[in-house]
């Protein structure tokens, strides 16, 4: 836990036990600077060394999820620029559409394997409950983004899925809040609202991972520094 989260606030300009000036109460700039520099321990934003137990393939899938998410967003931006007539009719559009689809497939596959690995090593240990929670929220937000993506294909597949989703949502009483047959709502959620939510939660998740470090295996000793 960083010093700024302690119950007692040191006097402005005082030195914390870590040896750095504490945030002053009179300047939000100093407070923001302190939070930015102390949210993650020094040297842990982009560490070049990790504990020995990280040398396992199961630790690769978090980064694989991030990489596939970057490809998902990048291909989605290209699709948004080209428009549905382009991605449905041109060969390059078909290719980018396929890149978007298959990067999503890989994204969910590696995210699920990442989840399995973290579940079986009880990754919420050692003060990492918020890391675990943001990961679960990111998964739910990503599922919502995927579902609205099905509705945004502008083809008969989207129409069929929208009709089925409409019946499902009505059956559980959610039809008053979300109309799956409204393509404008589905598209806006898919390309703006939900990607922003996924991006923000994933950034929080990564910051928390760097703040607390990757979780060690259950029988491994966690490094003290």
């Amino acid at each position, binding site marked *: 836990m960083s010093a700024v989260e302690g119950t007692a606030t040191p006097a402005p300009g005082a030195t914390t036990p870590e040896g750095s000036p504490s945030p002053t109460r009179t300047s939000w700039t100093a407070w923001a600077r302190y939070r930015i520099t102390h949210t993650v321990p020094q040297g842990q934003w982009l560490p070049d*060394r990790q504990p020995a137990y990280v*040398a*396992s393939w199961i630790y*690769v*899938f978090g980064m694989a999820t991030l990489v596939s998410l970057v490809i998902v967003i990048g291909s989605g931006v290209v699709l948004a620029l080209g428009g549905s007539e382009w991605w449905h009719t041109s060969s390059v559009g078909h290719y980018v559409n396929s890149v978007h689809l298959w990067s999503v497939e890989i994204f969910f*596959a590696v995210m699920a394997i990442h989840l*399995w*690995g973290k579940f079986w090593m009880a990754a919420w240990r050692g003060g990492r409950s918020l890391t675990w929670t943001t990961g679960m929220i990111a998964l739910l937000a990503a599922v919502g983004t995927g579902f609205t993506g099905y509705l945004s294909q502008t083809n008969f597949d989207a129409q069929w899925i929208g009709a089925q989703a409409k019946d499902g949502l009505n059956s559980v009483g959610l039809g008053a809040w979300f109309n799956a047959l409204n393509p404008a709502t589905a598209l806006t959620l898919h390309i703006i609202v939900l990607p922003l939510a996924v991006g923000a939660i994933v950034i929080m998740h990564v910051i928390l991972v760097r703040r607390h470090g990757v979780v060690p295996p259950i029988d491994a000793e966690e*490094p003290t520094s």
Partner: protein
Amino acid sequence: MANTQVLAEGAGNYLDFGIFHISVTNALIMGAMIAIFILAIALPFPHHEPDDDEGAR
């Protein structure tokens, strides 16, 4: 309804186990994910020897 069933019948092959109904494609993808998970735990991760005495690996 009959027409939609005809369309759906050509959509792929399905496995039926009582109330459990899954396409062969989805079953294969789920099996591949489980296999990758097991391999990720079982296979050794390639790494080089530390080049100094401070190496943690």
